[in-house]
């Protein structure tokens, strides 16, 4: 069967009324939480994970996909109307979008963001569907050493290739590695780093760490800045519809943004923000209205917003086909799979095709739902922006602890939430990126397993890692991705890299 047949089958699975209902709940919750200032997709997904605990795997993952896409849509609303991007990938949108809102053109800005997100989501999800079977075929020839090399590459790109400091990226990554050592060793069953505490035998939950880092750490960091005055929400004046010139200026950036964003998301190369920066730079160069850039150019909203959503879909390529999370959001989604004992990867396409294709198809459905949900009902979402900070953060912490208690109602787990929250606060204050610690925690046990398998096969011969051409090339790229930015920063060229930095997803 071709990818097209599988996709049709998936659509049939996903149009089950109950699953449609789950998708609808997912996109609604995702948009609502994503709109809230200070909450990006990673936190949205982590906060809403407990909602799905008691559902069946298909329903839960479909709801999850809706939350992911919904969070991306919601983030753009925040950045356009409030100028506080809810996620790092929306920073660029805030640049032009907020200027448009100030000029009273908030409606068209929201519309071009929503329609652009829809177009990009549609094309990128289709690309995902057609690309996935090929990557799966490729992944089938991967042995443990190739997987290990791929994970090393992901570690390097997530932690140190971008951002403003190799040291802080690597430190965050190694903290994740250290936390991942806690628990029972998967191959020999020995307890590591548990110090006789039974609660530690199961290891540290990715969701606990993510919620602590993103929700508690963020709340502490914002509170520590003191009262900086209220942010101004720009009311949406006039029509939300775009006029003829808006359309003609938007459609090309949408398409360009999609084709810039998707490959960047699909490569193990870190977050969605890189795509949005590239798209913005491209639009600025190609525009017929260069004078409007910096003062609310619609192309500057349309392109990056499309790139943002396309790379969100692109991230799902390595996640679904290889089980490789390249962003914090993807790491939490992986934790969502694992709670049902599912391991994304080539095997999942063989053993559970209905689930995988149902999930991909439901992304298409969620995308369409989001367009309907966002354009006519924008006024409702805007109201969420006016929640005062005390209530907002009190609510965020309520739900953050709810998730932790719901997963494991023990005081020990809450204690870990508090401790990691303080670590997350410290990391924010000192400029440590958050994504590497989360990715390190979830990915390093897998990397360790693959490494030990590879070395078991070779009977302890480490050179085996370099004798596979695929593994050798990937390790070589990983080494370059580590060394080149280091040299660039030492020569004072680090500014370019820190511009591409993102801390959230």
């Amino acid at each position, binding site marked *: 069967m071709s990818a097209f047949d599988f996709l049709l089958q998936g659509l049939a699975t996903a149009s089950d009324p109950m699953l449609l209902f789950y998708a609808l709940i997912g996109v609604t919750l995702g948009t609502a939480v994503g709109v809230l200032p200070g909450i990006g997709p990673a936190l949205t997904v982590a906060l809403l994970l407990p909602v799905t605990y008691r559902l069946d795997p298909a329903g839960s993952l479909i709801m999850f996909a809706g939350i992911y896409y919904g969070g991306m849509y919601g983030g753009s609303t925040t950045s356009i109307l409030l100028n506080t991007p809810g996620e790092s990938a929306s920073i660029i949108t805030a640049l032009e979008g907020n200027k448009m809102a100030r000029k009273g053109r908030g409606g068209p800005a929201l519309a071009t963001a929503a329609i652009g997100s829809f177009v990009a989501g549609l094309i990128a999800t289709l690309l995902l569907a057609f690309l996935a079977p090929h990557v799966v075929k490729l992944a089938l020839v991967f042995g443990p050493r190739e997987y290990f090399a791929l994970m090393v590459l992901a570690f390097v790109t997530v932690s140190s290739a971008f951002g403003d400091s190799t040291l802080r990226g690597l430190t965050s990554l190694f903290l994740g590695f*250290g936390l991942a*050592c806690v628990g029972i060793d998967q191959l020999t069953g020995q307890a590591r780093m548990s110090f006789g505490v039974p609660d530690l035998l199961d290891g540290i939950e990715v969701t606990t760490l993510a919620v602590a880092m993103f929700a508690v750490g963020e709340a*502490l960091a914002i509170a*520590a800045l003191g009262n900086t005055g209220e942010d101004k929400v720009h009311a949406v004046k006039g029509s939300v519809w775009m006029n003829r010139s808006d359309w003609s200026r938007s459609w090309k950036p949408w398409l360009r943004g999609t084709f810039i964003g998707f490959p960047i998301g699909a490569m193990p190369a870190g977050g969605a923000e890189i795509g949005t920066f590239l798209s913005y730079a491209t639009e600025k160069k190609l525009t017929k209205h260069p004078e409007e850039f910096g003062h609310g150019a619609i192309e500057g909203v349309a392109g990056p917003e499309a790139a943002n959503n396309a790379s969100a879909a692109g991230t799902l390529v390595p996640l679904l086909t290889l089980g490789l999370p390249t962003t914090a959001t993807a790491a939490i989604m992986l934790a969502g799979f694992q709670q049902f004992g599912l391991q994304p990867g080539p095997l999942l396409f063989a053993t559970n095709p209905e689930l995988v294709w149902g999930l991909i198809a439901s992304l298409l459905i969620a995308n369409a739902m989001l367009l309907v949900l966002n354009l006519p009902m924008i006024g409702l979402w805007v109201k969420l922006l006016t929640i005062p900070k005390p209530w907002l953060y*009190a609510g965020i912490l309520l739900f953050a602890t709810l998730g932790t208690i719901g997963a494991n109602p023990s*005081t020990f787990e809450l204690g870990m939430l508090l401790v990691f929250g303080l670590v997350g606060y410290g990391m924010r204050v000192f400029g440590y990126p958050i994504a590497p610690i989360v990715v390190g925690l979830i990915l390093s046990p897998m990397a360790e397993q693959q490494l030990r398998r590879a070395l078991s096969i070779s009977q*302890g011969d480490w050179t085996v890692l370099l004798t596979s051409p695929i593994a050798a090339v990937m390790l070589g790229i990983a080494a370059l991705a580590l060394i080149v930015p280091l040299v660039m920063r030492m020569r004072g060229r680090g500014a370019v890299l820190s511009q591409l930095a993102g801390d959230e997803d």
Partner: protein
Amino acid sequence: MSLKQYEIQRRPDWAALIIAAGLAVFGAVILWDSARLADLGGYSGVGPGTVPRVVGIGLILLAVWTVAAALRGDFPERPRQQPAPVLWIIAGLAGQLILLKIAGFSIATGVLFALTARAFGKRNLTLTLPVGIAISFVVWIVFSQLLMLNLPAGPLEHLFFGGAR
């Protein structure tokens, strides 16, 4: 550049040195723990202690690097931190942790809610505490009764839902 500025830049960054010490301690604990693991390497020679050992050494090397960065003043400027709101939130989380088993989800989380709101400037606890408990109670009903999540019940929950655990 004046001499004074120069001195400020050369001053070692104490906070960063503390981070380095923390990293070194974490690395040392991992190394200490991995040392007592029996090496069941089998054919590969890589046992359960190998990767922790690499991670532990890595953390110690990063600690050394952090010291170097701290002495050079490589850490970015930090905005002024206000301790009071941070302590309120910590108190809220600690309060919830202590009260959870005794007073149940709603009251414990209501305390967290009120103290967090306090940290962000809503000082009137006679307002925020009841609001927090009420919201938490609604959340408890939705999540424990409808979504079947296991949330600890206390006196308040038992009052309305007698059979609740």
